[in-house]
């Protein structure tokens, strides 16, 4: 693999894909908003959709010269390589995510009970705790009854 950075073509690769990225994002968000939005939001969605479509059309025209409105700014083969690179990397990321999810689902991710620290629970005397709770409840009841009898007097 050629790892040298001497022949970087920022305009051909970075700028072209930057515009494509903006176009795709506007198109996707526009579709989403125009479909699910209502009233003003829906109008904004249509505007975004239009803007995304125009952006993509212009960048394709700049690369392939199909419409003839924009000057031929990008070299066709470089633009194709840039597009292939971007799509490949995104596909790779998606595949990686799927692999990660698959492994996580297959691996038993629940901690065993043996790993839990049960010493604190063993030290607890449940009977004593119950007695304490009962005493507290009784005290609360007594306090309420005392309050009621004083009010009646």
């Amino acid at each position, binding site marked *: *693999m*050629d790892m040298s950075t001497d022949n970087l073509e920022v305009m051909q690769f970075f700028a072209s894909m930057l515009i494509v990225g903006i*176009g795709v994002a506007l198109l996707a968000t526009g579709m989403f908003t125009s479909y699910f939005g209502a009233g003003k939001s829906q109008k904004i969605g249509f505007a975004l959709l239009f803007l995304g479509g125009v952006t993509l059309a212009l960048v394709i025209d700049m690369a392939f010269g199909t419409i003839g409105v924009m000057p031929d700014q990008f070299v066709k083969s470089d633009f194709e390589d840039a597009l292939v690179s971007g799509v490949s*990397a995104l596909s790779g990321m998606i595949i990686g995510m799927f692999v*990660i999810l698959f492994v996580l689902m297959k*691996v038993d991710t629940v*901690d065993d009970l043996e790993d839990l620290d049960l010493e604190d629970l063993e030290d607890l005397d449940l009977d004593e705790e119950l007695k304490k709770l009962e005493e507290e409840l009784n005290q609360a009841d007594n306090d309420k009854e005392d309050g009621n009898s004083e009010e009646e007097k």
Partner: protein
Amino acid sequence: MNTELIISMGLVGVMLSMLFMGLLIAYYGSSKTRNVGFLFLIIGAALAYYLTQTDTSDVAFWNGMLAFVGGMVGGIIGIIVFLVAIIKS
């Protein structure tokens, strides 16, 4: 050339997923998932090493990376434009 480009950039994508998700899982995971996170980190590092060592094609690797980063930045800008339009409306 395109096949090599697809393979190398696909590997870059898988490497990025493995490294970032591995980092997250290794840091926030429970005792069992943490080990899997470390495994993902090792796979990501191995992929990165493989990508730097392979010299079997004439793919301009950094041009591909530029294209990928450009697409990602463009996508983020597009989403920011969408959010601004929605918030300002």
